[in-house]
């Protein structure tokens, strides 16, 4: 354990000083502060919205959650994708493992350090957002709001740690960082863009939109308002949603909405789907509603970490490859 703490301290210092981390941190901080500012302005106009609206992005649809949906994978993966293979090729790993530590201290320490760096990023960002909002609004969160914010912070850390664990897995299974960075980018693109396209395609195949031929008399608007057509759209939407649930980002989005007490669909990155910020779910209800998603993300994290742990312990350590 002592070994893991030493490794963790060194890795954390590396992260905090790395350009990669600093750039991503700054980016998230600037965008989040901006969204908090907008959120606070919205709350000023709509006092019934409540403090929580700071995080839900209000009418701009540009929220902390949507930022994390989009940037979360890249933040987590970027802290993990070269954790093992870089040291393997450089030869520092064989030097490290010649020290009196257990081999798992290395991977535990690296995972801990990554999680700590991600927690710092999350807590700082959410803290600053709350501070900005409070100074604009002149009032703070209620106890209920505060509990939601804390739970939401934990959810975000869990979600980012999942991506970190996936990156760690990539760095364990590949020998070259150029391969693992490629895998990371592919993963990011897949979950943030490709999966939505696939979902739409599948929905289109399964439930094609058929326009009745004999619309000579009736107008389009009437058809669009018809119950059959609405049912069609509902089915398509549910297919798309279920496919997108493969994506941890989507799960995070859903869980986040439930915890923050915002109902009403997904919070898109940008666009009108930004979610009406009315509190519909009580705290406990929200937590219960988000439980399946939270469990799924946690399971994904555990699977990725255990896989990289086991692989790392069996790794043939030879300098240079």
């Amino acid at each position: 354990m002592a070994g893991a703490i030493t490794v963790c301290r060194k890795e954390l210092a590396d992260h905090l000083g790395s350009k990669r981390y600093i750039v991503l941190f700054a980016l998230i901080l600037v965008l989040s502060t901006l969204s908090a500012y907008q959120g606070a302005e919205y709350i000023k106009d709509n006092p019934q919205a409540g403090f929580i609206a700071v995080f839900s992005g209000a009418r701009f649809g540009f929220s902390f959650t949507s930022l994390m949906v989009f940037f979360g994978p890249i933040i987590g993966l970027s802290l993990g994708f070269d954790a093992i293979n870089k040291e393997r090729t450089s030869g520092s790993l064989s030097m490290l493992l010649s020290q009196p530590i257990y081999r798992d201290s290395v991977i535990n320490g690296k995972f801990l350090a990554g999680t700590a760096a991600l927690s710092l990023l999350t807590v700082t960002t959410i803290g600053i957002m709350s501070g900005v909002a409070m100074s604009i609004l002149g009032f703070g969160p209620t106890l209920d709001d505060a509990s939601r914010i804390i739970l939401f912070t934990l959810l975000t850390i869990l979600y980012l740690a999942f991506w970190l664990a996936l990156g760690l897995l990539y760095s364990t299974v590949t020998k070259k960082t150029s391969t693992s960075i490629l895998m990371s980018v592919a993963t990011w693109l897949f979950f943030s863009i490709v999966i939505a396209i696939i979902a739409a395609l599948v929905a289109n195949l399964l439930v094609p939109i058929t326009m009745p031929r004999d619309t000579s008399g009736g107008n389009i608007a009437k058809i669009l308002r018809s119950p059959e057509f609405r049912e069609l759209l509902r089915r398509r939407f549910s297919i798309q949603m279920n496919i997108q649930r493969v994506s941890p980002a989507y799960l995070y989005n859903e869980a986040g909405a439930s915890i923050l007490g915002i109902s009403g669909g997904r919070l898109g990155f940008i666009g009108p789907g930004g979610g009406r910020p009315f509190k519909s779910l009580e705290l406990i209800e929200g937590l219960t509603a988000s439980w399946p998603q939270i469990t799924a993300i946690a399971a994904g994290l555990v699977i990725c970490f255990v896989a990289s742990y086991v692989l790392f312990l069996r790794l043939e350590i030879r300098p240079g490859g």
Partner: protein
Amino acid sequence: MPEPIIETYELTKYYGNVKAVDHLNLTVYEGEIFGFLGPNGAGKTTTLLMLMGLTVPTSGTATVGGYDIIKESREVRRIAGMLPEGAGYYEDLTARQNLDYIGQLNDIPESEREKRIDELLEAVGLTKWANTKVEKFSRGMKQRLGIAEVLIKKPKIAFFDEPTIGLDPQGTKEVRDLMTQLNKEHGLTIFLSSHLLYEVQQTCHRVGIIRGGRLVAADTIENLSKNIAEKGRMVIEFKLTEIRSDLIRELEAINGVTHIKRGEDNRLYVYMESDRSREVSETITKHGSIILLMKPKEHSLEEIFLKYYEREA
């Protein structure tokens, strides 16, 4: 009587069908510099990695400093240090930071750590570069940093895997001198893997020769050389004042002499199956020639080791 400090028992490592190390039995004694010689791919690195617990043996085991390399591999790493083949460092960190990290991993308290780092940087000649990032280091400087990293734990045993590879003559000499000095002054047992014969001859008390994963010999260089000489033929080089053809004929008639070769400058090389140097020199004097020089032709190191490498091929 020196105590054994490293003992391997039928130590074996297979990579698929490749026998990297094949039932190796080896003993290294406390306080010696042991040279581990062998051609490329002989299994030197694999042996070292197994002894330090970086690779798990397929079968067999070993003890290092009394600790079992499988069950107590962490204890082994506490008392033994290794400079692996192709060792690397944290390029973003300075020499001092690199050393400090290794020191922390060895649970050396901070004040003690700082003291040792200063001493070691001095010993390997990196004091001036203490606060320079390792990415700016030359190969030789990195190698010296590596040696410092091995020594920071004050090991009883140090494993060096081809430590002078890629170093210039000056750097090579420095590394060798440092090894000899550590051995003499601190009684450090050194296990040196190398295929540089001269290096081994200069520094090692005893050598083990490994080929195809098997130990073919383990002894002092002197004894190894003698063994080869006894098994092969003996050659004596003479330099005479004059050589007449009937002398050569008469020498060839001596029982045990196989043949004679003439060299330039009135030299003669006498090949014999057993030591006939007495008869040979008597015959020469009888013929009125004076012996200016007479010495057994030595087997070069290369010859000796090639013989061992080739054996049971």
